[in-house]
């Protein structure tokens, strides 16, 4: 697992609680020293690095004062895990050297992610630091460099875990339970407690994006936590297939077999992708037999019930029936709301019931898009520096919910406007010039110009073969009228909203 968080509550000058807003007498000498060291590093690195490298990676870092007292220290925060590793691999050593040069003695360097939750208050302006960092929900990872060497041990621990290919975020604790997944979760917990002996294989099936992958990672993580020496591997079927192909090419089937038969827990995801890959199925069949005979656990996910899988050998299908087959169903509204609240909690973001309900109402079929929607709302709030309200959520979700291409046709606009003013669509093309008909027609022309990229002659043509100067006149008339006629202005506003969806 990742090293435990070592970062306590800290002051984040870039998060709004600026040093300037603190009483002057509290100004800390350590802060000043650290800021000076960091300014020194910034100046030097700006000269040493290509500008784009400097602005992408170095300027994304934030410095905080280190532990008071000696030896001198510098604590840096990266906006996400990617930047953390990038900086650790490429620049941390150089920063250490600059620290040595500045202080005349080695500086204790620490590079980490900000503590989740501190990143919520957005800065007033849209500074580069306002980049929505969805990685913040990950456990805090710290990279330290006691110069000149990096902390080798924490990297070694990481790599054992990394071999499992498990996602540390997917645990039973972060899984929301409801009627839709109750049974599957209970079975998964059983398997995690008694791998190889309770249900083997455990076959979990259900539609797209309902949390099958989360559940099987949770099993893996629980087994790993109980016994870090257990040999665990999560593998997507496509990767398993790639392994088989590689074994073919490199004539290394022995090594391939040895590896897959050495596992204590094999989690294989999306088995429906096995269809008609005969050699892969054959290899899996043998691995399956070897593992179950040795009482090693196998966990399988699929988008359908075993008997419905296309292109799968019968002998495999019958083996999948040996253990337990459980289904995950789509979550009902209450569960979707609960899922959102849990995810918001993980992001350390306050989410009102009204907002959770709004998101859950619009995205029904799967958890993945629910999460995408929440991420969008959070990023939107951070960028604009506003709290998450119902109004804000509606704005933010527009980008997701405009399901159809907004390339509107003139016909759609004509019909919508005609319905709105309760006139006939045919009147849009007619020669009639009475106000009750002419005005809506002009509104429709104005909307056609604003909402489509059509040429004015083409728009005129669509309105009963009128000249482009007529369209131009209509657009000018409506633009002027909107300034003085609140009713018309309201109509145009409503129609724009309706048409844009």
């Amino acid at each position, binding site marked *: 697992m990742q090293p435990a968080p070592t970062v306590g509550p800290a002051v984040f000058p870039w998060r709004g609680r600026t040093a300037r807003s603190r009483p002057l007498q509290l100004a800390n000498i350590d802060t000043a020293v650290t800021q000076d060291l960091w300014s020194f590093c910034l100046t030097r690195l700006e000269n040493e690095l290509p500008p784009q490298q400097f602005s992408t990676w170095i300027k994304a870092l934030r410095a905080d004062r280190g532990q008071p007292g000696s030896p001198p220290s510098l604590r840096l925060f990266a906006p996400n895990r*990617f930047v953390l590793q990038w900086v650790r691999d490429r620049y941390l050593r150089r920063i250490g050297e600059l620290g040595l040069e500045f202080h005349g003695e080695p500086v204790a360097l620490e590079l980490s992610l900000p503590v989740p939750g501190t990143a919520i208050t957005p800065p007033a302006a849209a500074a580069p630091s306002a980049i*929505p960092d969805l990685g913040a929900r990950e456990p805090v990872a710290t990279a330290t460099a006691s110069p000149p060497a990096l902390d080798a041990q924490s990297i070694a621990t990481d790599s054992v875990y990394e071999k499992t290919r498990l996602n540390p975020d997917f645990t039973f604790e972060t899984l929301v339970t409801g009627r839709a997944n109750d049974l599957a979760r209970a079975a998964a917990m059983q398997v995690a407690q008694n791998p190889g002996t309770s249900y083997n294989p455990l076959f979990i099936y259900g539609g797209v994006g309902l949390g099958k992958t989360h559940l099987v990672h949770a099993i893996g993580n629980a087994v790993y936590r109980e016994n870090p020496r257990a040999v665990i591997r999560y593998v997507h079927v*496509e990767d398993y297939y790639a392994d088989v192909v590689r074994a073919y090419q490199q004539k290394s089937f022995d090594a391939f077999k040895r590896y897959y038969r050495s596992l204590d827990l094999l989690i294989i995801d999306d088995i429906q992708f096995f269809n008609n890959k005969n050699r892969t199925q054959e290899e899996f069949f043998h691995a399956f037999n070897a593992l179950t005979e040795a009482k090693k656990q196998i966990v399988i996910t699929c988008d359908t019930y075993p008997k419905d899988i296309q292109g799968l050998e019968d002998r495999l299908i019958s083996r999948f029936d040996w253990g337990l087959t459980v289904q995950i169903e789509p979550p009902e509204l209450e569960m979707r709301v609960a899922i959102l609240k849990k995810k918001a909690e993980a992001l350390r973001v306050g989410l009102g019931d009204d907002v959770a309900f709004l998101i859950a109402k619009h995205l029904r079929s799967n958890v993945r*898009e629910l999460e995408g929607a929440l*991420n969008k709302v959070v990023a939107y709030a951070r960028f604009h520096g506003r709290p998450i309200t119902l109004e804000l959520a509606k704005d933010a979700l527009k*980008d997701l919910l405009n399901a159809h291409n907004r390339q509107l046709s003139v016909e759609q606009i004509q019909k919508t406007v005609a319905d709105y003013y309760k006139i006939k669509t045919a009147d849009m093309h007619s020669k009639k010039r009475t106000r009750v008909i002419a005005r809506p027609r002009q509104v429709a022309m104005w909307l056609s110009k604003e909402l489509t990229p059509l*040429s*004015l002659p083409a728009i005129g043509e669509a309105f009963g073969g009128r000249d482009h100067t007529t369209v131009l006149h209509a657009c000018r008339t409506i633009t002027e009228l909107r300034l003085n006629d609140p009713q018309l202005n309201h109509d145009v506003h409503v129609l724009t909203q309706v048409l844009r969806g």
Partner: protein
Amino acid sequence: MKQLVLDIGPDADPTFENFVASGNEALIDALLGAIRGASHLYLWGPRGCGRTHLLKAAVTTARAAGRAAELHAGESIDTLPATNGLLLCIDDVDALDEPAQIALFNAFNRAAHARQTLLLSGETAPLGLALREDLRTRIGQCLVFEVQPLDDETRSAILRQIARRRGLELADELIGFLLRHGSRELPRLISVVEALDRASLERKRPVTLPLLRELIQLGLEI
């Protein structure tokens, strides 16, 4: 006598700076975030709204910062690179055929472990994408942005900027004429400016409304 023109365009490479469209500040900020590996991004909007420009700009910016980046497009992508740390940009995901969709699906599954960041674009919001459901929902999990559409004011600003890069000053009446009479789709407008530039060099005449009219007479579509 016509002057022959060498086929060397003076157009600048797409960057975030020369992306002229207001209302997209949050999107550009998120693109910079994606280059730093913050999250996968999906941006959508109709043809000509500037998606390809933004993807190309992201690739350029990422490479300048030392991060490997690739741009793929088109319906037939067999496999996508598994390179560690790659910024993988894919344009027009709505056009991907079945094998290409599986390639992208695999890229999604690989991304966390290979520390790749995906930057995708398409014509509609995720809910409207006609793709495999397992892929469509993965796209829906990205941070989604609609590229804000252009209005006529922005269209003229872009035309002016493109023309200026070619050393041309477009008169208001010429731009007004184009927006009144021609298609207002940006790719078409840009190709008209290119045609005007070429004609002006060939005929050694300034870019004016009469020149444009002449070209239209000769069959230039606006």
